[in-house]
C-alpha cells in the first residue's frame, strides 16, 4: 500500500543517517518489522467500562486482526483488562446480524409474525408509517396546549455506549424533529442519581476531580463500588499507590464482601440502605468534633435541606406511593448551620451502629479519617450509591462530608463519582440525551435554555417541548398502558438489563398497538422481544467519540467496514430523518413562524442545515499517511461527524452554563483525549480550583461557578427505609451487579469463546449457612423467586463474592437467567434511577 512504502522511505533515511553516524538503532528494526506484517494500527478507546483505556486496533485486509494496549495512553499505559484483551473478537461472533429483520406473516408486518429479512427501504417504510401515525395522534392530542404541556407517542431508549455524534443526532431527531422528549439513555440506570446530586450541589454535572487523584491521595474510601472488577485498570493504579505510598489506607464499604476487599485495610459490611445513616454519622462526627473547615465552609458553601418522605418512584396507585407525603419533591430549602447541626444529632455512633450493623470502632475510624485535615481522601462510588431509592440523597451526603472538611477539587482530595459506561459522561450526560436535558447542562424546563438551543439548531421559536419526557422506567409503563406506541431501542439490551421484566417491560413491548424497533448487532433478548431489528455497525466499524469518567473525550476513526448491510446507528437516525416532511411532524403555527422550512424534510432542517453539513467530503487520514473509511461521509456526501460535533461544541463554549468548553474536532484525533473544559487547547484537571480551572477568577481560590452565588450546597437528608425489604416469606436480600469477565448483558463478551469458558453462567452467590438452611450446597440448582418472577441457577458458596448471612448476589450477564425479572421497578423519585440492589427473594432447591 502507498503509505507503507513511504514508511520504508523514511526508515531508509533514518537507517542511512544512523549508519553514517555509526549509531545502531534497535528501535528502528522493530519499527521496520512492524510495518512489514502489513497491519495498520490506530488508536481507539476501549468499548467497555467508563475507565476509558485507549487501545491500538490492528487492521489488515478489512478485518480487525489484533489489538494492543496503547502504551502512550495516560489512563492505562499499554494495559487492559481481560475484556480489553479480547476486543478484536467481539465483532466476529458467529450469529452477527447483517440484515434488517421484520416480524411478518404472509408477506406483511404482523405483531405476532416471525422475523424475516427485509431491505432497509422496507424497514424504514414500515417504521415511517408507524411513526407518522403516532406523531399525527400526538399532534391532535397537543392541539391548543402550550409548549410546556405537549406530550408525544414516540420514544427512544438510547445509551451511554452511544458515540457523541450518535447521541447528538438522536437527541436532535427526537427533541427538535419529532418534538418528543421521550428519549432517555440507559445511563438512567447507571448515572442519573449522580447527575441529580451534581446539579443540586454544584449546579454543573460531571466530577470535579480526575484520575490523577489516584496517584496523590493518602486514603481511598470505596462506597458501593467493586472497582477491582468493574474499573480494573483504575483499581490497578489505586493498588499501586497503596503499595508504594507510606501510610496509604484503603477503606471499602459494601453490603457484601467482594474482590476489592482484598486490598482493604478496613473492610466494612453494612446493611442495605444504611449508607445514608453512616454518612450522616460522619458529618455529625465532623461537626461535633469541630473538624469543620470553617474558612472553606464560610466562603464557598450554603446549608440546605431536602423535602423528605418522597416515595419510591412507583406507579401513582402503588400503596407506597400513596403513603408518601411529598412524592417526587426535591426543592431545596436554605437552613443555617445550627439547623443542619441539629438535624445531624440523632445520628450518633450507637444509633448508626445498631441500624447498620457496623461496629462503633469501625464507624469512628472512618469518621476520624475524614475529619483528619492532613489526610487527603478520595471517595469512590458507583452503582451502590447510584442504583438506590435515595441515590441523589446519598450522593449529596457524600458531598456534604467533603464540603464540610473542604476536601474537594484538589490533587488526591475529593469525591469522585465513577461512571459505569464508556460514554455515559461524554454522550448521555454532556450531550444531554436524557428526557429532561439539552446539551451542556441545559434543561428542557427552562425557556431560556430552549431558546438558546432553538437558535443554535435554527428552529422556529417554541419547537422544543418544555415538558420533561418519559424516563426509562416510565417508558416501560407508558408502553404497557399504550400511551407510548413507537419505541426505538439503540445500543443497549434493556429487556435484559431493565427492571421488572415480567410485569412492566415485556407486556409493554409485546402490546399489540406498539411498534418496537431494536438496533442491535447480535440476537439479544431485546432483539427477540422487538418487532423490527436493524443490524448495526459495532465499535471500530464506525467513526466515534467516547467521554470517560474523568471528562476525557476520546475520538477514533472507522477501521473496518461493517458486515453485510449493517449500518451505524448514526447512519440510521440521519437516514430515517429523510422520511419525514416538516408538515408531518410540526403543527401549522410552528411552520408559520419559519415558512422556509415548509416542504423540507427533517434531514434538511436538522442535518443539512449549513452547519452540520459544512465540512465537505475529504479522506480521513492519520499522521502516517494511512487512509481510513468513512461510510457516513460517502453516503451523505459531507463530513457528518465533524459537522455534528462542531455544532454541538458551541453549546459548551457560548451556552448559558459556562465551563463546558471542548476542543475543536481535529485536536481529538491528535491526542489520547482531552479533559474538558478545554480552553486555548489546555485541559482542566481539577474544576472549580483556581490555577487548575480557567473559569475560577484570580484570588477566589475556589468557585463553584455552576451555582449563581459560586457556593456549593450542603444538603441534609435523613435515613429512609428501602422500598422492599426481606420478610417471612421472601426472607433474603438479593443484589445484582457485574463480574470482571463480562460486560453488562454479555451480548459481546459471551460470544468470545475464552470469556464464555471462564464464566459461562450466572451463579447465585450466598452464605454457606443460608444454603444449608435451605437444603442446598455448592453446585446445586436453586430456584430464586421474588414477588415478580423466578429464575434458576447454581449455588456458589465459595466464589469471589463472600455474602453475609441473609443476602445473595446474582450477576445479570446471563441471558438464560434474567435476574431482572425479580427486580422491583422502584426508583429514586428525584433521579428516576432504578434500585437494582435491594430485592426481597426466597431461595429453594430447583
Amino acid at each position: 500500500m502507498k503509505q507503507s512504502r513511504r514508511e520504508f522511505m523514511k526508515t531508509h533515511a533514518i537507517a542511512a543517517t544512523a549508519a553514517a553516524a555509526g549509531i545502531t538503532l534497535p528501535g528502528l528494526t522493530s519499527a521496520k518489522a512492524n510495518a512489514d506484517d502489513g497491519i495498520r494500527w490506530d488508536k481507539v478507546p476501549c468499548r467497555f467500562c467508563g475507565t476509558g483505556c485507549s487501545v491500538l486496533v490492528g487492521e489488515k485486509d478489512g478485518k480487525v486482526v489484533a489489538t494492543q494496549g496503547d502504551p502512550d495512553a495516560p489512563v492505562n499505559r499499554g494495559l487492559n483488562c481481560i475484556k480489553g484483551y479480547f476486543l478484536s473478537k467481539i465483532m466476529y461472533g458467529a450469529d452477527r446480524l447483517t440484515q434488517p429483520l421484520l416480524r411478518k406473516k404472509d408477506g406483511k408486518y404482523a405483531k405476532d409474525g416471525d422475523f424475516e429479512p427485509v431491505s432497509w427501504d422496507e424497514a424504514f417504510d414500515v417504521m415511517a408509517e408507524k411513526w407518522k401515525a403516532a406523531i399525527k395522534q400526538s399532534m391532535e392530542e397537543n392541539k391548543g396546549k402550550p409548549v410546556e404541556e405537549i406530550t408525544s407517542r414516540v420514544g427512544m431508549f438510547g445509551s451511554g455506549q452511544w458515540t457523541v455524534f450518535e447521541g447528538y443526532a438522536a437527541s436532535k431527531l427526537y427533541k427538535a424533529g419529532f418534538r418528543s422528549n421521550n428519549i432517555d439513555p440507559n445511563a438512567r440506570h447507571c448515572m442519573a442519581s449522580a447527575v441529580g446530586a451534581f446539579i443540586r450541589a454544584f449546579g454543573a454535572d460531571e466530577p470535579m476531580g480526575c484520575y490523577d487523584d489516584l496517584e496523590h491521595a493518602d486514603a481511598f474510601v470505596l462506597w458501593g463500588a467493586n472497582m477491582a472488577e468493574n474499573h480494573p485498570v483504575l483499581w490497578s493504579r489505586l493498588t499501586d499507590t497503596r503499595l508504594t505510598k507510606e501510610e496509604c489506607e484503603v477503606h471499602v464499604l459494601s453490603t457484601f464482601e467482594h474482590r476489592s476487599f482484598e486490598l482493604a485495610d478496613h473492610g466494612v459490611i453494612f446493611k442495605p440502605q444504611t449508607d445514608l445513616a453512616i454518612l450522616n454519622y460522619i458529618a455529625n462526627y465532623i461537626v461535633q468534633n469541630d473538624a469543620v473547615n470553617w474558612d472553606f465552609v464560610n466562603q464557598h458553601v450554603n446549608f440546605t435541606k431536602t423535602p423528605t418522605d418522597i416515595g419510591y418512584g412507583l406507579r401513582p396507585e402503588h400503596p407506597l406511593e400513596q403513603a408518601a407525603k411529598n412524592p417526587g419533591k426535591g426543592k431545596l430549602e436554605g437552613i443555617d448551620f445550627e439547623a443542619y447541626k441539629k438535624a445531624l444529632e440523632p445520628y450518633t455512633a450507637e444509633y448508626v451502629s445498631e441500624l447498620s450493623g457496623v461496629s462503633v470502632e469501625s464507624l469512628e475510624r472512618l469518621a476520624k479519617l475524614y475529619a483528619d485535615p492532613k489526610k487527603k481522601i478520595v471517595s469512590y462510588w458507583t452503582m451502590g450509591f447510584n442504583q438506590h431509592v435515595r441515590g441523589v440523597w446519598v450522593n449529596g451526603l457524600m458531598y456534604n462530608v467533603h464540603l464540610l472538611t473542604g476536601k474537594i477539587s484538589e490533587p488526591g482530595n475529593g469525591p469522585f463519582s465513577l461512571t459505569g459506561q464508556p460514554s455515559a459522561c461524554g454522550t448521555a450526560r454532556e450531550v444531554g440525551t436524557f428526557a429532561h436535558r439539552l446539551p451542556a447542562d441545559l434543561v428542557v424546563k427552562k425557556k431560556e435554555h430552549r431558546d438558546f438551543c432553538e437558535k443554535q439548531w435554527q428552529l422556529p421559536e417554541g419547537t422544543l417541548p418544555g415538558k420533561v419526557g418519559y424516563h426509562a422506567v416510565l417508558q416501560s409503563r407508558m408502553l404497557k398502558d399504550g400511551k407510548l406506541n413507537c419505541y426505538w431501542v439503540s445500543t443497549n439490551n434493556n429487556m435484559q438489563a431493565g427492571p421488572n421484566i415480567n410485569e412492566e417491560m415485556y407486556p409493554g413491548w409485546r402490546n399489540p398497538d406498539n411498534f418496537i424497533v431494536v438496533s442491535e448487532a447480535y440476537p439479544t433478548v431485546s432483539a427477540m422481544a422487538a418487532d423490527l431489528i436493524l443490524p448495526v455497525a459495532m465499535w471500530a466499524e464506525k467513526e466515534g467519540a467516547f467521554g470517560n469518567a474523568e471528562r476525557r473525550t476520546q475520538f477514533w476513526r472507522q477501521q473496518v467496514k461493517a458486515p453485510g448491510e449493517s449500518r451505524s446507528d448514526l447512519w440510521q437516525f440521519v437516514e430515517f430523518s429523510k422520511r419525514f416532511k416538516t408538515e408531518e411532524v410540526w403543527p401549522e403555527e410552528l411552520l408559520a413562524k419559519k415558512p422556509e422550512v415548509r416542504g423540507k424534510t427533517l434531514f434538511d432542517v436538522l442535518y443539512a442545515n449549513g452547519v452540520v453539513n459544512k465540512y465537505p467530503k475529504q479522506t480521513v487520514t492519520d499522521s502516517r499517511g494511512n487512509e481510513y473509511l468513512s461510510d457516513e461521509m460517502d453516503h451523505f456526501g459531507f463530513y457528518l461527524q465533524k459537522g455534528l460535533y462542531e455544532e454541538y461544541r458551541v453549546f459548551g463554549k457560548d451556552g448559558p452554563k459556562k465551563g463546558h468548553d471542548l476542543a475543536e474536532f481535529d485536536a481529538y484525533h491528535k491526542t489520547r483525549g482531552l479533559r474538558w473544559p478545554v480552553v486555548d487547547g489546555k485541559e482542566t484537571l481539577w474544576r472549580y480550583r483556581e490555577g487548575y480551572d480557567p473559569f475560577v477568577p484570580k484570588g477566589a481560590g475556589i468557585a463553584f461557578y455552576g451555582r449563581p452565588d459560586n457556593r456549593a450546597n450542603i444538603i441534609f437528608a435523613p435515613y429512609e427505609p428501602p422500598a422492599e425489604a426481606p420478610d417471612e416469606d421472601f426472607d433474603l436480600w438479593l443484589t445484582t451487579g457485574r463480574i470482571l469477565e463480562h460486560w453488562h448483558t454479555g451480548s459481546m463478551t459471551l460470544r468470545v469463546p475464552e470469556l464464555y469458558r471462564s464464566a459461562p453462567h450466572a451463579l447465585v452467590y450466598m452464605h454457606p449457612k443460608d444454603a444449608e438452611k435451605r437444603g442446598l450446597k455448592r453446585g446445586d440448582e436453586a430456584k430464586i423467586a421474588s414477588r415478580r418472577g423466578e429464575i434458576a441457577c447454581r449455588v456458589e458458596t465459595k466464589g469471589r463474592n463472600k455474602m453475609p448471612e441473609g443476602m445473595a448476589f446474582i450477576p445479570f450477564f446471563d441471558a438464560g437467567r434474567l435476574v431482572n425479572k425479580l427486580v422491583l421497578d422502584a426508583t429514586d423519585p428525584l433521579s428516576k434511577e432504578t434500585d437494582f440492589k435491594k430485592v426481597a427473594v426466597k431461595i429453594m432447591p430447583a
Partner: protein
Amino acid sequence: MDKDNHSPPRPNGVNRGRRDFIVSALRSAVGVGLAATLLAVHQRRADALPASAIRPPGANADDNIFQGACIRCGLCVRDCPYDTLKLAQLGDPVATGTPYFEARTIPCEMCDDIPCLKACPTGALDPALKEIENARMGLAVLIDQEACIAFQGLRCEVCFNVCPVRGEAITLDMRHNPRSGKHALFIPVVHSDACTGCGKCEQACILEEAAIKVLPLKLAKGALGAHYRLGWQQKARAGEALVTPDTPHQYNLPSGASYDHGGQGLMLDSPGDAEAPPFSSNPLDTLNRKGGI
C-alpha cells in the same frame, strides 16, 4: 492339575508318558513366563502417568499403588455429576480401564460430598479423605509467566476467580508495575499446601494454551532438605523467638538521628512523634472549651 485326566488314549493314538507331561509343562511355563515379563514391562510403562491425566480425588499419589487398588469398575465415573471422569481405553497413555480426567477439557468441580470417592468399592479412592479441600489430585503450576497476561500487568485473574479454594490455594501477589510506573501487577500465586489440583484454573485460563497447568505432585514439587528450616517461619509458628531476644540496644548517635534495631536501622531526621490530630478524642473537651466556636 486335572486329576481325572490320567492320559486316556488320545484320538490320535499318542501315548503321553510322564516325560511328555514335563516337556509340555516346561514349554507352557516358559511361554507364560515370557508373557509375564512382557506384561511386567508394559506395567512399568503404565506406571508413568502422563502429566495431563489426573486421578480422581483420594487416589494414591504413587500411581503404581493406585493401579494395584483400582479394579477398573467405572463406578466413580458413573457417580461424577459433571462427566469429568472417564476410563482409560486401550491405546490411551493411561493404564487401561483406570479413571482419570483432563483438567483443560472438564475439571473436577470439587463436590463437597465427593460422590466419586463414595462410589469406589475397593477403596482405591481413599475413604480417609473426608474434606474435598484435602484432596491432592495434583498441583497447579503457573508455568508460562511470559504468556500469562497478568504478569504483563493486564487485569485477568480468571484462574483466581474460578478457584474453589481461592485465597488459600491461589492468592494474588500485588506488586508495583515498574514499566507503567503507576499501575500494579496482580500476580496469581499457587500455594501447594492448599491446592487440590482440581484443574478449574487450567480449564478457565483464557490463553490459547493454558499458562497454568495441573501437574502430578512428584513433577511439580521440590522438597526443602530436612536439615534446614526458614527462620522467620519457625519464629512465626512458635509465636516467639526460639532463642531469647537481645536486650534493647543503645547507640551513640548525633542529635536528630535515631536507630531502629529491628526495623529501618539508622533514621537521620527522626520525625517527632506523629502530630496528634488538632482535637482531643473526648468530645467533651472540645464542647466545654472556653471561648465558644
